């Protein structure tokens, strides 16, 4: 409950913006009032907290709605991946059971199990945004895995005709182009792909997406981007 006589002055008192005579009166009052004393104490830290910010910081920056879509897309994609991994693991466990009679078969099954691995939680070691002359664009996250680098790529604005094939390339510092494999866009020009390239963090700094090969020859570059380690 607020003080019936001086409650409305507490805010101005805490901020030190009352007239001088009111400030003096409040100092005396607060010392003995069972309402204003505790309330002034409770609010006393506010000027110090307000000093920490520039009023231009209010309102604080707002997160773009696209980030939520990206988070949920990633979640849906990884859930699918996890589901596939679980199914794959289960299949291999069944394989272990059937092969129990033969040590060689068990060894093979175990090898298969180990090869499945589980890189959930692997840290992203770099990211890349790719753009080109057209409206197409892509982004990728790069993870270190045993075979090299796992590339999780999302692209949009690609050719909408005939589910065209594209190839992802990691350009090594020594000029070598290392293929990460191919993917196709859907009919809306969107693509999501999980690829693996035989390169490691630090060995390359650029990534290029080209059109699919024609007669074994690398297609023209469609998108290019520089890695952000």
């Amino acid at each position, binding site marked *: 409950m607020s003080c019936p006589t001086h409650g409305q002055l507490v*805010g101005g008192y805490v*901020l030190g*913006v009352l007239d001088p005579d009111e400030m003096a009166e409040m100092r005396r009052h607060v010392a003995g009032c069972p309402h204003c004393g505790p309330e002034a104490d*409770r609010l006393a830290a506010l000027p110090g*907290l307000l000093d920490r910010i520039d009023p231009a910081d209010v309102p*604080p*920056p707002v997160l773009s709605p696209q*980030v939520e879509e990206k988070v949920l897309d990633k979640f849906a994609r*990884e859930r699918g991946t996890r589901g596939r991994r679980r199914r794959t693991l289960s299949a291999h466990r069944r394989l272990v059971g059937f092969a129990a009679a033969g040590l060689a078969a068990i060894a093979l099954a175990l090898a298969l199990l180990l090869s499945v691995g589980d890189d959930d939680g692997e840290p992203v070691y770099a990211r890349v945004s790719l753009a080109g002359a057209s409206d197409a664009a892509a982004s990728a996250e790069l993870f270190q895995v045993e075979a090299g680098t796992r590339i999780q790529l999302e692209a949009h604005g690609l050719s909408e005709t005939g589910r065209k094939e594209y190839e992802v390339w990691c350009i090594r510092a020594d000029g070598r182009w290392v293929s990460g494999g191919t993917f196709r866009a859907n009919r809306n020009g969107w693509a999501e792909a999980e690829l693996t390239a035989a390169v490691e963090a630090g060995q390359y700094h650029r990534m290029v997406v080209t059109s699919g090969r024609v007669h074994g020859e690398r297609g023209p570059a469609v998108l290019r981007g520089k890695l*952000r380690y």
Partner: protein
Amino acid sequence: MALSDATLVERLPRDDGGDELRELYRRYSGELFGFACNALGDRDLAEEVVQDVFARAWRHAGDYDPRRASVRTWLYSIARNRVVDARRRAAVRPGVAGGVEPESPAELDRTLEQAVLRWQVAAALARLSPEHREVIRLAHYGGLTLREIAERKGIPLGTVKSRTSYALRSLRLILDEMEVAG
């Protein structure tokens, strides 16, 4: 009835439709983004941090122990680690604020605590009514007395006095909700 934060995290591993993740995102993405923006001074990097925090929250939901920390504290600890990583990367990539000079762990902790606090105070002010926010802006940042504010705005002095008190009480309540002491 709304699920508690801890229940949302507990359900994440079995979250088929993404409902729990979406709710957790709704509750915490804004403040985590504000924290990351303050700590990194770069919107794009801050957005990447937010994405990473929720990806990790989902992947590691099974590790969360409600007896050790609130969900907010847990998410901030993930965000803090992501911000540290981003600052390390920025240390070799000129142009990102605060990323050139390497900091000691203690300095870094202080910087990140300040970043959290700045965002929380700004967010609390943003939640006040425009009238309450304005009276604080004029009195605290503008250096006007309540009498000067009343004259400038053409409203009774008594109204300005009570409005200022209500504004500070509301601000304190919002900061209490955000677990901001001091």
